[in-house]
């Protein structure tokens, strides 16, 4: 606007100046005016040319700078200090140039950074790709391992189930053993009571045998007394026999008168013989009784010894049964503990089985997940390869951008 006003003002001024300057040189009026106008125009043109030249010098300088800038040199500065539009344009241009320089520098720096980043990314992608391939291999191995693990866990689950069943069976058997041991304990107690009763009975029997032996000994003493009595009777019978014989002798010596006496003597002798015979039989019986009593006493003494020994044996058996009962009771307690432990073990085994089944399922899921992870890793490898290619492409692009920007001279 100012330029337009300046130009207009310069034209008007040049015209006024031409007319003013040309008027003293006018000869005739028509020619004078023409000269005046022509002169005014000429002056105006010269003034306008000079003025335009003066006015466009900054624009030309600005164009020169723009031409230099178009060649990529951004280091130039616009040296225009005017306050007119051109000055404004130059300052704006200078600001634009400065901004462009900053932008180019920023782009260059960014492109370098992008290039470096792209290269780094490419290298990283390559490394990641290599790592991913290793990860993929590892994942494949892990997948196979997970499958093996799942299979092993499955076997373990089966074995654990069998073990749990065995433990449950052991628990059942421990319960049965507990019952049997309890019954054995009761029987041992009953046996101990029976043995104690048997000991009492044996002692009673020993006492009865002793009393019987005492009675038999008394009986033997009576038999000895009988023997003595029978000896006395035998002696009496013998003496009677002798007297009868002597009486018979006397009767025979008396002849016919002694016949009746002889008969009586003979009868007495026979009676004496009979008495002696009976006495001998009684003596024999008494002797037999005595002998048999002695035998019975010996047998009873042996029975007493045997009964005593039997009592001791039964007492020992009772003591042994007592010990057995105590041992069985202790065993019952232990078996009870074992039963409880096996019960807990069975419950723990069930929990273990469930846990292992859960582990089996998790292992199966892990195997599947590992396979998926392996597949994902393979996909990731492909992606990383693509990313590597992209990074390389980006590096080339940034390199190209840097080449493009390198036309700008900024230093």
């Amino acid at each position: 606007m100012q330029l337009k006003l300046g130009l207009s003002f310069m034209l008007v001024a040049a015209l006024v100046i031409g007319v003013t300057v040309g008027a003293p040189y006018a000869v005739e009026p028509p020619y004078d005016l023409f000269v005046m106008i022509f002169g005014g125009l000429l002056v105006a043109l010269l003034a306008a040319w000079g003025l335009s030249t003066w006015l466009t010098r900054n624009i030309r300088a600005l164009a020169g700078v723009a031409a230099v800038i178009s060649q990529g040199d951004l280091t130039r500065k616009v040296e225009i200090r005017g306050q007119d539009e051109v000055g404004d344009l130059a300052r704006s241009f200078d600001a634009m140039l400065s901004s462009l320089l900053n932008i180019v520098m920023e782009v260059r720096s960014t492109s370098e950074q992008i290039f470096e980043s792209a290269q780094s990314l490419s290298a990283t992608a390559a490394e990641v790709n290599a790592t991913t391939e290793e990860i993929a291999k590892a994942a494949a191995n892990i997948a196979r391992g997970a499958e093996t693990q799942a299979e092993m866990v499955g076997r373990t689950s089966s074995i654990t189930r069998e073990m749990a069943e065995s433990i449950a069976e052991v628990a059942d058997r421990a319960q049965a053993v507990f019952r049997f041991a309890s019954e054995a304990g009761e029987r041992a107690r009953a046996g101990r009571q029976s043995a104690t009763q048997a000991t009492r009975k044996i002692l009673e029997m020993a006492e009865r045998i002793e009393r019987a032996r005492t009675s038999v000994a008394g009986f033997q003493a009576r038999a000895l007394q009988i023997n003595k009595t029978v000896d006395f009777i035998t002696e009496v019978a013998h003496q009677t026999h002798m007297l009868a014989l002597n009486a018979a002798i006397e009767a025979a010596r008396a002849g016919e008168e002694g016949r009746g006496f002889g008969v009586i003597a003979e009868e007495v002798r026979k009676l004496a013989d009979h008495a002696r015979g009976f006495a001998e039989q009684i003596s024999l019986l008494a002797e037999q009784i005595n002998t048999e009593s002695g035998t019975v006493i010996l047998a009873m003494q042996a029975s007493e010894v045997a009964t005593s020994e039997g009592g001791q044996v039964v007492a020992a058996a009772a003591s042994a049964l007592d010990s057995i009962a105590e041992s069985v009771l202790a065993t019952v307690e232990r078996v009870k503990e074992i039963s409880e432990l096996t019960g807990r073990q069975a419950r723990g085994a069930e929990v273990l089985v469930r846990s292992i089944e859960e582990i089996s399922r998790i292992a199966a899921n892990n195997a599947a997940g590992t396979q998926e992870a392996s597949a994902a890793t393979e996909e990731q490898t492909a992606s990383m390869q693509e990313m590597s290619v992209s990074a390389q492409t980006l590096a080339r692009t940034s390199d190209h951008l840097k080449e493009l920007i390198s036309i700008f001279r900024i230093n």
Partner: protein
Amino acid sequence: MTPPAVVRFQLGGRPHALPLPEVAELADLPEPVPVPGAPPAVAGLSDLRGRVVTVIDLARLLRLGEERRESGRCFAILLAAPFGHIALTVEGDVKIATGLDPAPPPGIPAGAEDRAMAGGECVIGPGTPEETALPDAEIAIRLEARRIVQLCSREVRGRFRIETEEE
């Protein structure tokens, strides 16, 4: 006439007999006290109701072996007078038998002859009336008190004569 009676007894396992008039009594004598220097047939001296009697082992005297008697008891036949101080030890089973047959029965058991020869003296000869039959058909050897005493006296005399000769 009443048959002669005898006292029958066992001696050496066989029945023997003594005429009843030659027998004074039967007695259980105490254990005889041996007489030093007497022949084996003389068992010793014994007491019979305060009277000393000579006890003769008849089985030993007749070479029938030693008379078997229980210790502390001596069953003997006390001879009648004039041998009333002599008692003959006999085995048991003493009986008074009557109605003897003086004729010897046929078939005398063998050995009687040998037993009858005692010390070279014929005390009871074979086939003599000393062998008789008892009423129950039992064969017994009849002895005589006189001959028994003679035999015993010879034994005693022979014994002391030998010792005198030795002296």
